């Protein structure tokens, strides 16, 4: 296992810039997720690290080695592909043995490692089956075993769960996380599914339009997004436009409502509040209480998703935990409520 250092990686295809100014240091044993919408450059970056694409400029180091121009087969990065990519003409065990043979592992040791790898993913009993005889989830597990058998320095996963159905996705995701922790694998996990990323990453790099938007732990990114894209991409956020009138006070553009915020930051154009931070009550509570009327209240089982039409005309989304019908009596369509939140719940943006 090794650390990975990426420095100002850039990739252009003709005049199109796929990835620009990508810099990241991944610690030994850390799982970093590359998250972002389609076309944001996350897969391109991963493939540059794997060696399938040559960067235009920038460097990639694995451990102490500069691998930027190193051919794929010499990098010793184990990769799991979105559509499994098992060798169809080989059995499960032959698939796993292939990498070991390429790495010139001694025959007896080869066999041992193959069995260990298959045991890790609980696919030992399928060792002489062919990929076409396996289900998607089983094939993916074999692909994981195959990548891990060679004891790679870095473990790369390219949207490994997107071809699996919902229930299986959770299962395999947990297995990957457990394996990764137990083996202390430095791992890069590419996905477009934020829940996936939030669930397993030590740190996440959110990408958009070829650039890193923010890097941090799931909590950092969710609670303290750096920019509007990250704020909006992870979960939902209510935005208010306006400007700071004096320290601690934010005046909204529409209807000049006053919102109390933390800190002395003056250059604030927007503030954001997460729906789960808003409580709805008949009486004003706390520092900020915006009046409005309940527009829709959707019962989602464990939560209540409420849209409130503020008197100032905007809509805010509030997410309330389901505490039972007595607690939600005042939440019905047309009811007058106060949307309440604290200054610390406000995230400040200068755009």
């Amino acid at each position: 296992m090794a650390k990975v250092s990426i420095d100002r990686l850039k990739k252009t295809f003709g005049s199109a810039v796929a990835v620009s100014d990508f810099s990241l240091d991944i610690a030994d044993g850390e799982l970093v997720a590359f998250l972002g919408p389609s076309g944001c450059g996350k897969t391109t970056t991963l493939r540059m690290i794997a060696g399938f694409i040559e960067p235009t400029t920038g460097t990639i180091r694995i451990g102490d080695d500069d691998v930027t121009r190193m051919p794929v087969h010499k990098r010793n990065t184990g990769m799991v592909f979105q559509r499994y990519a098992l060798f169809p003409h080989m059995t499960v065990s032959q698939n796993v043995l292939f990498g070991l043979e390429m790495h010139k592992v001694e025959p007896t040791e080869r066999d041992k490692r193959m069995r260990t790898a298959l045991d890790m993913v609980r696919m030992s009993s399928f060792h002489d089956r062919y990929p076409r005889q396996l289900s998607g989830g089983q094939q993916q597990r074999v692909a994981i075993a195959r990548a891990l058998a060679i004891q790679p320095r870095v473990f790369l996963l390219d949207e490994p769960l997107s071809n699996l159905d919902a229930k299986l996705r959770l299962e395999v995701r947990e297995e990957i996380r457990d394996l990764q922790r137990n083996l202390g694998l430095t791992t890069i996990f590419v996905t477009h599914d934020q829940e996936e990323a939030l669930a397993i990453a030590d740190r996440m790099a959110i990408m958009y339009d070829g650039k890193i938007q923010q890097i941090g732990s799931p909590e950092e990114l969710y609670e303290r997004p750096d920019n509007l894209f990250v704020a909006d991409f992870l979960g939902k956020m209510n935005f208010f436009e306006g400007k700071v009138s004096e320290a601690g006070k934010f005046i909204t553009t529409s209807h000049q409502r006053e919102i109390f915020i933390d800190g002395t930051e003056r250059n604030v154009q927007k503030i954001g509040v997460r729906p789960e931070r808003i409580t709805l009550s008949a009486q004003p509570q706390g520092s900020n209480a915006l009046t409005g009327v309940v527009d829709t209240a959707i019962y989602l089982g464990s939560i209540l998703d409420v849209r409130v039409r503020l008197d100032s005309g905007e809509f805010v989304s509030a997410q309330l935990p389901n505490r039972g019908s007595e607690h939600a009596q005042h939440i019905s369509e047309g009811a007058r409520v106060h949307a309440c939140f604290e200054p610390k719940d406000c995230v400040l943006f200068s755009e």
Partner: protein
Amino acid sequence: MGQLKQVSELQTAADADARITPFPAPHRKSRVPWVAWLHRTFVVLMYLFMLSPLIFVVWLSFFKDAILYFPPSGYTLSWYHKAVTDSAFVNGFLTSLQVAIIASLCGVTLGVAASLGIIRYAFKGNNLVNTLLLSPLLVPGIVAGVAIYLAYLQVENLLDMDVVGTYGGLVLAHICLTIPWTVRLVSASMHGLDPSIVEAARNLGANSRVAFWRITLPMLRPAIVAATLFSFVVSFENLELSLSLVGPGRTTLPIAIMQYLEFNLDPTIAAVSAIQILLLGVVMLVTDRFVKLSQVV
């Protein structure tokens, strides 16, 4: 729909996770059942229409009488004996067999190499080359046959040696038949290969060369085998191209059958035809194991 499932069933169902088939055809009872029945009967009739010539050929080959007459007075195998001992047919069979084997082996070698060159290495004008290699399929067999015949005559004059009616001349022309089918089959297979499989091999430590020989080529094996068998059939049953290129004492089985049929229709020729049907039918069935023939044709 109100059906209870056992818990274990649910678990295995979840484990057999969906390889989602695009557009599973909706299965519902036709509101007008007699239309469906009519449809099915029509389809059966059409199949009979397409297959009946072959059925009759085989049936006739067992008729006792030497002259075609319905109903047959009895059945016999003697015509088959005649078919396999008649020197004209035996020679024709052997010639066709030999030409088909050589033409398919050569054609496949050249065709596979060409496919690899065109697809793996995008060189300038590779689309043009691809079209060139597939062009024999567009030309009417008769036109190609007479054109080659005339060209051979010119070569004969030029080089003062026999070309027309020779074995080699026939084989060369047949190779031009097998190359396009090979290119078509192998190219289609190569395009259908999942590129991430080769990437996986390289990621696991295989360099380009190893990845090609250990991964790409084995994955192409079904297509290559199918191309060989298919080329064999195309060459063996060919008539139009070969017509102008055979000579005295050397002819192919289809031509021998045709020449006989122009004068005579009897159980003997039916037996010979039935043997050809059997041979090519078996090869076709074997080919189908390697590649879905319906997509090719």
